[in-house]
């Protein structure tokens, strides 16, 4: 901690004294840098010369007519003095082959920015194939980082800088580049073979994509990485694999980021292969110096973080936060956490994260299938653990029948569904909100469960915690919906303290209780009590057959059945008394109310913020408690001329709202592309209503 503060102080000092553009923590590093800089000057002169020669050669060899001429290239690398510009906001998109390490590169950049106190939001956009054929569009993996001096709520619609490690990456991602965005490419990969493999019609991909007027930076990343590590003794394959660090170095220069965090990461990551630590550091620094020396970018940028709320911060992804929130609920309930689960994208990392924390009273079972995941969890709930199962859409389908069993046996259970593109296998790595209907209705019989949705990576912690609290205190299954976007995205998070979270009181029946009846309920929550096997005198039997209203013995009595159906519905509805009121962003009345739920929060918020700045009477409200809805939901809707429900499906939440508020008209804004909304799309749909 102190070390990081120190860096921060030093950075300010450096900035004030304007010693240099480069920020280094200590003298030793600085001296190393100077030496490197000299070395790089030599290398640079050599490499630029060879680069230009190669470039020209390749132009002729490939016989493609460059719409940007040689002088333009030289201009990009001219010796003009680099200016440092302070900016508020930048979006960078790293893209390359799925084996190029783009997810790591993006994560390191994001984490470094987060450590400096910037607002950060990330969006990994990767293919379902682990290693698709090299150089093809289907194998392109992307990672978008949005950094801002203030609070960041989305990873940004479009990027200011696009790093494309090969022509396929350029092709797949050019559509995400803002007009005039800087595009950094690995010049070594832009040869005839690479361009053809990416499926370009001509040999000039830039013209073909209409990018000729963008700020194009041709950095021979592969060859310079090879040059950088030629004396390292590493084999060629390993050397080439570290080219992502060269690209990262370039970005560190342009956005004035320090190395320390990344160096620490290398140390940790290569603990077992220490001979890779120094080469990775070297490539990163060489990339940085290459950019500095070539003045690759006309300006360097500095994002000066706004003063944030005091406290200790960390970076967190949605799946990590979900796992931790569940562990927190287990701690506050003083019950072991049991997770029965089966790997499925994009939910797997919750199971992986839970598996690490066995010492926090966590038991994880990677079982034989999705059904076993929920059934082991139900067994564990019966035996008195806080039981959880984690999955994504197709897995939730498989768990449907067992969810009914949990409803019938009225046991606490949290089912986490990290939604992805469907139906069927669909788009495993893409995001969607298409499981809402399944969560609400996807079971046989009258089978209500509590449905909650998290809306940002960090608030997955909060809602996972409350999913656990409600499940245990109300003796009901709870489905927690997140989605691929918030599950894999990360953001800085002010770390909460557990003393600020409430204790959870599961209604466990004490030994010697003479009043116990398996289905006798409390008046407030209508929850039955939880009698755990091994407690003397409470032996009882429950199961999937309809239960007698009181004794819980199997009952086929028609009147009893209807009574129980109504009771199970009433119990879930009663949760409404225990959840907070729905809040509005903006004025409580106006022309348009944007309604969202779950993971679209950041985009809706950014859109409404911009619309309000434009003077429009637009407010928004984002739902986290879906079933039941907060008590004041109806009141909120009364006060707007128009209501538009924005969701990444064909209108499932809108349809649900219509069933509850038949007197209100709901407009819809829908998108089902496996992608998050863009702020621009949302604004456009609202503007149409104004």
């Amino acid at each position, binding site marked *: 901690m102190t070390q990081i503060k120190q860096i921060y102080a030093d950075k300010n000092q450096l900035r004030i004294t304007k010693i240099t553009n480069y920020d280094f923590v200590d003298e030793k590093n600085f001296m190393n840098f100077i030496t490197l800089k000299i070395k790089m000057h030599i290398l640079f002169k050599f490499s630029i010369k060879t680069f230009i020669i190669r470039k020209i050669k390749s132009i002729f060899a490939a016989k493609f007519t460059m719409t940007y001429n040689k002088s333009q290239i030289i201009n990009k690398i001219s010796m003009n003095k680099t200016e440092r510009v302070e900016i508020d906001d930048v979006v960078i998109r790293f893209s390359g082959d799925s084996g190029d390490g783009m997810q790591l590169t993006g994560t390191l950049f994001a984490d470094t920015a987060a450590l400096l106190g910037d607002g950060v939001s990330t969006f990994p956009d990767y293919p379902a194939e682990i290693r698709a054929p090299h150089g093809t569009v289907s194998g392109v993996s992307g990672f978008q980082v949005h950094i801002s001096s203030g609070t960041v709520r989305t990873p940004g619609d479009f990027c200011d800088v696009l790093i494309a490690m090969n022509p396929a990456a350029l092709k797949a991602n050019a559509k995400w580049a803002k007009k005039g965005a800087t595009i950094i490419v690995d010049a070594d990969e832009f040869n005839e073979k690479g361009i053809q493999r990416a499926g370009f019609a001509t040999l000039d991909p830039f013209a073909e994509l209409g990018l000729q007027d963008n700020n194009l930076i041709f950095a021979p990343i592969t060859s310079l990485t090879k040059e950088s590590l030629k004396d390292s003794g590493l084999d060629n394959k390993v050397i080439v694999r570290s080219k992502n660090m060269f690209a990262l170095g370039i970005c560190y220069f342009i956005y004035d980021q320090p190395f320390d965090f990344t160096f620490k990461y290398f140390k940790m990551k290569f603990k077992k292969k220490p001979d890779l630590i120094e080469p990775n550091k070297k490539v990163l620094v060489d990339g940085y110096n290459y950019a500095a020396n070539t003045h690759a970018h006309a300006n360097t940028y500095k994002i000066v973080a706004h003063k944030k709320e005091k406290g200790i911060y960390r970076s967190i992804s949605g799946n990590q936060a979900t796992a931790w929130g569940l562990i927190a609920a287990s701690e506050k309930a003083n019950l072991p956490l049991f997770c029965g689960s089966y790997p499925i994208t994009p939910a797997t990392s919750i199971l992986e994260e839970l598996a690490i924390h066995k010492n926090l009273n966590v038991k994880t079972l990677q079982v034989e299938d999705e059904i076993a995941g929920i059934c082991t969890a139900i067994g564990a709930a019966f035996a008195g653990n806080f039981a959880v199962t984690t999955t994504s859409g197709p897995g939730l389908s498989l768990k449907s029948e067992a969810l009914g069993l949990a409803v019938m046996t009225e046991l606490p259970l949290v089912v986490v569904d990290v939604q992805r593109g469907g139906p069927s296998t669909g788009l495993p790595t893409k995001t969607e909100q298409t499981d809402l209907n399944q969560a609400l209705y996807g079971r046989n019989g009258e089978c209500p469960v509590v449905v909650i949705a998290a809306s940002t990576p960090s608030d997955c912690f909060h809602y996972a915690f409350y999913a656990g609290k409600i499940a245990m205190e109300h003796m009901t299954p709870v489905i927690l919906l997140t989605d691929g976007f918030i599950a894999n995205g990360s953001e800085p998070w002010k*770390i909460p303290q557990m003393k600020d979270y409430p204790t959870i009181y599961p209604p466990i029946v004490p030994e010697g209780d003479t009043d116990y009846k398996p289905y006798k309920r409390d008046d407030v929550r209508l929850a039955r009590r939880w009698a755990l096997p091994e407690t003397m005198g409470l032996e009882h039997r429950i199961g999937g057959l309809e239960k007698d209203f009181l004794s819980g013995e199997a009952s086929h009595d028609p009147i009893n059945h209807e009574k129980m159906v109504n009771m199970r519905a009433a119990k879930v509805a009663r949760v409404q008394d225990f959840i907070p009121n729905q809040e509005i962003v903006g004025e409580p009345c106006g022309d348009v109310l944007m309604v969202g739920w779950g993971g679209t929060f950041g985009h809706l918020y950014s859109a409404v913020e911009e619309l309000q700045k434009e003077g429009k009477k637009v407010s928004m409200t984002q739902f986290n408690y879906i079933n039941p809805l907060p008590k004041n939901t109806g009141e909120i809707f009364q006060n707007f001329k128009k209501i538009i429900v924005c969701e990444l499906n064909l209108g499932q939440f809108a349809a649900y709202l219509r069933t509850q508020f038949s007197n209100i008209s709901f407009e819809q804004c829908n998108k089902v592309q496996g992608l998050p909304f863009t702020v621009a799309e949302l604004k456009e749909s609202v503007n149409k209503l104004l």
Partner: protein
Amino acid sequence: MEYTQQDFKSPMELKWCPGCGDYAVHAAVQRALPVVAKELNYTKQRFTFVSGIGCSSRFPYYVNCYGFHGIHGRASAISTGVKVANPRLSVWQITGDGDALAIGGNHFIHAIRRNIDINIILFNNQIYGLTKGQYSPTSKLGIITKTSPYGTVEHPFNPGELVIGARGTFFARSLDVEIKLSTDIMVEAAKHDGTSVMEMLVNCVIFNDKTHGYISDKEERDNRIIVLQHGKPMIFGKNKDKGLILDREHLQLKVVEIGKDGITENDILIHNAETPDTGIHMMLTGMKAPEMPVALGIIRNVTDKTYDDNIRDQLEEVKASAKVHCVDDLLNSGATWEVE
């Protein structure tokens, strides 16, 4: 703990069909539980019965213990969850040939593979009873049922072969009418650490009457079954004059008569239930009537690490080196920074 059968008796009325083999297995369980409680020093509230769906899966309602009547096929998964959540429980899983080997086949073999310490009683009547008479995965080839009016064209599973194929550590077989043998098997299964599978050959008097009739025949039973006992020679027959030897030429088991062709008792194989090697156990399990006697008793009883043990050991190891001891520690672990 000292209990009587009365302590485990449920107030519920047993609702199987008159003459159903399940009654006999129920009687054996009622006899076994007090013995298990005494020998393992268990209190009654530690016994938990878990079942799936089917006639036999009504069982938990008929024992005065903790019970969970699950959904079709999932009993192995549910009982796995129960046992991991509270390893002190003595978990008894009740399942049938449809529940365990058709819809629940996956959970069944994986529970065995993990060697989780549960006791599975598999009621094998070779038919679907609760849905009124369709063939099951253990129905004999060619059997005529409602869904196979011209006879089945499917080969049946032999449950024991599945268990041993999954390297199960305990497999025993009994016949509904052999209540004493069933009781003994249940007590040994409870003592065994790891997954114990007890196949109970039960008669379905309504839909598959006398499916085990050939071997349960009162007069001829002793000639058609062999009750295996660990360490004892594999001798059977009314007159104890038949035995099993290994036919070295064909590498298979062979029935011989003691006193004939120079065969003496010394030539008869000695049953070793405790050898980890699956070969001989697989052969014994696979013996089919009428050519061979059907093997009953404890065919395999092998000591190996259980899932429960491995979980416990790993947890102790992790705890010993853990730096994070509560959620606050967890939240503050790794890279953090302070804003002042």
